[in-house]
């Protein structure tokens, strides 16, 4: 009787121990572990709480299936749970990239606006500077007798002094050419023609040669001050193009002149 009772007790405890300690199933343990890790990721609950809840449910169904000894169904739900966890992670990553994208787009907009601001400021400054320069040059060139012609702006310089009978510039003539020099330095695209003229005193051929030499002397001076020689063309007309009578001293003074033609932009291109 006692033996029979003991046997019953042993069988009972054996069954209890079997029921309370189910076999560990590594795929399920791995899925549970990865779910725990996934849930701990920052902001994931905010983005994928439903997906994680479903992943959890699949784990529970898999556990149930294992308790019923159906490992095939358990494997299926473990697979679904893992997929849901991966989907949750992708949702989080996508969310993070979209946030980053919004931030970068805003930054780009700010930079474009800033660039436009700089550009408009630069344009304004450049306009102001250009206007000031033009004004200054107009003032400077105003010292010459100027006239707009089809060839360009014609500047007449009557009081340019040369060594008597020669083509060398007197030192004080440099001061007289200073406004022209400044203009050419400020407008590097502009080209000029220097034309020399004399009165009718002396031989015509000698006058022509002298007028050419004087025009060349002006060119040489400007080149020595940094103006590229290719921008300057010279011509000597001698006594051929008078602007006043050669019978009076005053008239001859007017005829002895150097004319500067500032070519128009179109002429430069040609």
């Amino acid at each position, binding site marked *: 009787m006692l033996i029979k009772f003991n046997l019953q007790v042993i069988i009972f405890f054996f069954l209890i121990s079997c029921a309370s300690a189910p076999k560990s199933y590594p795929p399920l343990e791995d899925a549970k572990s990865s779910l725990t890790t996934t849930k701990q990721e920052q902001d994931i609950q905010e983005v994928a709480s439903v997906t994680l809840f479903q992943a959890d449910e699949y784990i529970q169904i898999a556990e149930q299936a294992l308790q019923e000894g159906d490992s095939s*169904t358990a494997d*299926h739900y473990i*697979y*679904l749970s893992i*997929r*849901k966890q*991966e*989907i949750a992670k*992708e*949702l989080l*990553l*996508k969310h993070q*990239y*979209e946030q*980053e*994208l919004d931030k*970068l*787009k805003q*930054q*780009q907009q*700010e*930079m*474009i606006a*800033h*660039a436009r601001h*700089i*550009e408009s400021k*630069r344009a304004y400054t450049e306009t102001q500077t250009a206007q000031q320069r033009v004004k200054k040059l107009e003032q400077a060139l105003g010292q010459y007798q100027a006239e707009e012609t089809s060839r360009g702006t014609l500047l007449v310089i009557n009081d340019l002094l040369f060594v008597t009978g020669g083509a060398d510039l007197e030192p004080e003539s440099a001061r007289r050419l200073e406004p022209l020099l400044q203009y050419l330095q400020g407008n590097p695209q502009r080209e000029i023609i220097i034309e020399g003229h004399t009165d009718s005193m002396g031989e015509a051929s000698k006058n022509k040669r002298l007028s050419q030499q004087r025009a060349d002397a002006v060119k040489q001076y400007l080149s020595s001050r940094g103006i590229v020689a290719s921008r300057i063309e010279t011509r000597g007309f001698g006594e051929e193009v008078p602007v006043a009578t050669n019978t009076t001293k005053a008239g001859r003074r007017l005829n002895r002149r150097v004319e500067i033609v500032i070519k128009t932009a179109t002429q430069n291109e040609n």
Partner: protein
Amino acid sequence: MHFKTINFTCFLLLGGILGCASTPPSKTLPQSEVAVSSVDHSNYKKYVGNDVETVQVKLQRARDAAANKDNLITEQLAQQILLDVDLIKLKTQRMNAEQEVKELEANIINLHQELQWREPIQLTPLDQ
């Protein structure tokens, strides 16, 4: 005779119960067919071509299982395919966003350099 009739009735009842308990044909398979065809596109193959191929193979396994009237396997595979396709789509969207971020970052670097060249001093607030 009476005993045999009872046995036969029991057999019929048991068969009926078992028949009811077996898995019906998969309703998810048509959905998974549509889902797989939706990712059979260069947009998805560009980033996750292997995943697309894998899910196509799985769909074929589901079709084979359905042909063999293995309804449980068919339904399980179809359910898995739906989640596989969801993942493919999300991965692609994420990779597109990632690519867009990279391109925008490169644009911003270029813009930044251009602005520095123009007026370096005024860049300070944007650097913060």
